């Protein structure tokens, strides 16, 4: 170890001398001692957050390179680069410089594609990471605030994605901005002026690319970096969660030490994420703006798609039936815009406040460091499945035209089916997920009580065939029995003898959550089961 204490005389190696020099000026030894041998619980699902973090680093590295060559100007120039089909075409400097990065800068296309792929991976990894946190209940006390921070980062990541997508000022990104402009204009009271201020005049204007660039490379990254720092700081303060396993308790954190194993694995994993992104960028084209041409408000091609993470919002716009717009009090009320905006707002607000709702329903004030298997909280898992289905239908709706053309269906048929699915899908998903969870819990109980099927068939002297069930050892059993279930709340009058509306609501929700529940097997039950066998 290089903390260089002088307790025993040792050879003054260079490392020791350098460590001593640095420590005497930074007190870094305190941190090394404090953090260096912390246990870091290990599980493949914990890597999703790391993928997000490392993709972000790749985005920073590649993005910084791109800023040296990209010019965020909407001044008109005649393109004179190497891409022949566009030679002589009028376009903005932003578009021309993006083409130059792609066709006249060695390795430029590679870095540009890596940047775009990393951005897609970043948002995807955050989404999956959030699902992991949700379905395992890792958002419970003391981690609710970190859920909020992560949620904000998810929104910012989509903002980063959209602003970046808009920078090349190509036909597709211009149309994306046109849609944003149309949506903003549909907001009552402030819409018209908000759009006017954002675009610095009428759409498209000559300001928007420069403004989005400031957001994209300065404001949003700075906020993201600050939140990432806070997010990771909380991970240190809380220590990482762990799955139930023998020896792991709410009072310990079990895993390989940060130095050396975790550091080597996580450090290596950074290079793996970076490497996979490099591989994808070298093999697969992304956002070929040269095929789209510069932005022009008039042409558009069929089958255009936004980047995947904006799909759900685009899909929401598509599912509105005709005619949802009224003139009332001499003003235009665009419910075809407002309903998707408010609907999606409520959806993501539900995601944001879910941890607080669940905490209120259970009334559980303990810290939870052992995360749940999704089956052991069937209602939560079912709510998650319903949410995922809702999102998935909106996402599919963003590809309604592609679905119609590829599967030879009518546009109307696709939209009407998706409209119905948007409401029915989550309900079906809810009940299916809940029943599957409860069935899995029952199977767990069965295995604990009667052992697992060994596949060994034995013929008894009487001619009867039975399959031998192998009992679990105590370690395997622990994984199946070490969870807690909750009872529905009993309403009781408060000190003034009243039952408040809040209490009623809480009791109702508690019933909804915990009415159907499977309790883990207890020692007594196992004994009774053994008794039956003999």
């Amino acid at each position, binding site marked *: 170890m290089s903390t260089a204490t002088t307790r025993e005389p040792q050879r003054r190696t260079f490392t020791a001398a350098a460590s001593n020099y640095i420590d005497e000026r930074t007190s870094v030894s305190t941190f090394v001692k404090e953090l260096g041998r912390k246990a870091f619980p290990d599980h493949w699902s914990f890597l999703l957050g790391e993928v997000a973090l490392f993709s972000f680093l790749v985005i920073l590295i590649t993005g910084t390179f791109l800023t040296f060559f990209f010019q965020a100007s909407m001044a008109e120039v005649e393109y004179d680069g*190497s891409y022949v089909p566009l030679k002589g075409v009028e376009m903005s400097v932003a578009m021309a410089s993006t083409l130059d990065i792609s066709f006249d800068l060695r390795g430029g296309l590679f870095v540009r594609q890596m940047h775009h792929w990393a951005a897609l991976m970043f948002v995807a990894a955050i989404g999956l990471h959030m699902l992991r946190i949700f379905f395992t209940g890792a958002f419970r006390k003391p981690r609710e605030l970190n859920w909020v921070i992560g949620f904000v980062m998810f929104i910012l990541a989509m903002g980063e994605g959209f602003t970046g997508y808009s920078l090349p000022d190509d036909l597709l990104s211009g149309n994306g901005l046109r849609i944003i402009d149309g949506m903003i*204009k549909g907001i009552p009271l402030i819409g018209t002026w908000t759009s006017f*201020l954002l675009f610095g005049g009428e759409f498209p204007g000559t300001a928007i690319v420069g403004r989005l660039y400031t957001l994209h490379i300065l404001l949003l990254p700075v906020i993201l970096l600050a939140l990432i720092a806070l997010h990771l700081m909380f991970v240190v303060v809380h220590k990482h969660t762990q799955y139930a396993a023998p020896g792991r308790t709410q009072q310990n954190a079990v895993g390989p030490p940060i130095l050396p194993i975790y550091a080597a694995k996580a450090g290596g994993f950074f290079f793996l994420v970076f490497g996979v992104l490099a591989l994808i960028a070298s093999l697969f084209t992304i956002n070929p703006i040269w095929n789209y041409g510069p932005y022009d408000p008039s042409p558009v091609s069929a089958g255009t798609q936004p980047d995947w993470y904006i799909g759900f919002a685009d899909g929401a716009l598509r599912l509105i039936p*005709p005619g949802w717009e009224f003139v009332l009090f001499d003003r*235009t009320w665009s419910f075809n815009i407002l309903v998707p905006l408010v609907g999606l707002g409520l959806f993501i607000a539900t995601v944001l406040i879910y941890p607080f709702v669940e905490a209120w329903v259970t009334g559980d004030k303990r810290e939870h460091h052992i995360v749940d298997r999704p089956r052991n909280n069937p209602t939560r898992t079912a709510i998650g499945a319903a949410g995922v289905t809702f999102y998935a239908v909106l996402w599919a709706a963003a590809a309604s035209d592609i679905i119609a053309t590829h599967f030879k269906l009518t546009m109307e048929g696709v939209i009407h089916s998706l409209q119905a699915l948007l409401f029915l899908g989550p309900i079906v998903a809810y009940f299916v997920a809940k029943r599957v969870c409860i069935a899995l819990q029952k199977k767990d109980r069965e295995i604990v009580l009667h052992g697992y099927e060994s596949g060994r068939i034995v013929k008894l002297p009487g001619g009867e065939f039975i399959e031998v069930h192998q009992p679990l050892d105590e370690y395997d059993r622990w994984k199946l029995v070490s969870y807690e279930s909750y009872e529905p709340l009993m309403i009781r009058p408060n000190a003034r003898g009243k039952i408040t509306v809040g209490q009623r609501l809480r009791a109702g929700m508690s019933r909804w959550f915990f009415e159907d529940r499977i309790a883990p097997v207890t020692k007594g039950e196992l004994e009774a089961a053994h008794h039956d066998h003999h």
Partner: protein
Amino acid sequence: MAQDDHSGTELAAADSSHAETVPAVKTGTALIQSDAFENPGFPPHRPRVTDEDPKKEKRAQRTVYTLFYLSILGSIWAIAAYMLFPMEGNDVGDVRLNNLFIGLGAALALLGIGFGAVHWAKAVMTDVEIADERHKVGGNQVAREGAVKVFQDADRESGFSRRAVIRNSLIGALLVFPLPAVVLFRGLAPQDENPVELLSHTMWKAGTRLTLDPSGVPIKASDVTIGSAFHVIPEGLSELHHGKLEEKAKAAVLLMRLNPDELNELPDRASWSYDGIVAYSKICTHVGCPVALYEQHTHHLLCPCHQSQFDVANHCEVIFGPAARPLPQLPIMVDDEGYLVAQSDFTEPVGPSFWERH
């Protein structure tokens, strides 16, 4: 922090010390069973093959350094590819090779390090798991009381609670001081322009010729055959030096000729077409995409963004999709030379709806 000295204890030591303490905090409606199973403690350590077989360990080590050497090779390859695959001509194939080989080299360089480090950690490094004790996240009683005292002292010494006038005036000042900064952002858009005014007018005027997009060639009524459709911009748009795209975003028009029998015109718009030739705004009334797809035999226009459909035969009313209003019609006629011209500007704002539109 003194308790933290336990951190880093190896599993065997931690094993004995987890008597579940009775939680002092509220458990809510959690069902705590009295005869629940007890945690059996850590299972016995299972050695890896590399722990037991020195040959396998050697092999793992060889794999690790081979991967690191491969990484070096990848980096060199990427640098070589930078030089070997220049992009000098106008050949797109050069770009593809440059991208592919620099990329593959970089990928090998990165993946070599990644796989090497992970394999080192998993197969070669000593396989230890340790158990850290967790502590309640909230500070201990002493710290919390200390913090409360700090705030109480600060409050007493400053008079923050007591001197309400000072405190409230400060809060007031702090609330007001960012307002000038907000006002400065008014400058994001031009001072002397009103968006409602701008959105209500386009370049079209009485007598403006309809010309082809993007060439700007005027269109003769006789050139428009039945069933054809033209992308149209107002004459003079291509010559604009300022605000070309802004004008185009409002003035783009689709020109179609239908069999006059199939055209069902509103009585007050009977004079807006010419011999079955009609002109409609190309900007979708939903969120402003160009409604660029014309289906000739049904006379339907389809917006490729959100699939709103408009029926040209019925004054472009919405027949499907999220748009609410018909596409605005541009009144047209023919001038002395037989060219199509506008009778006036659109009679309503084109494009997406906005609050002040009525």
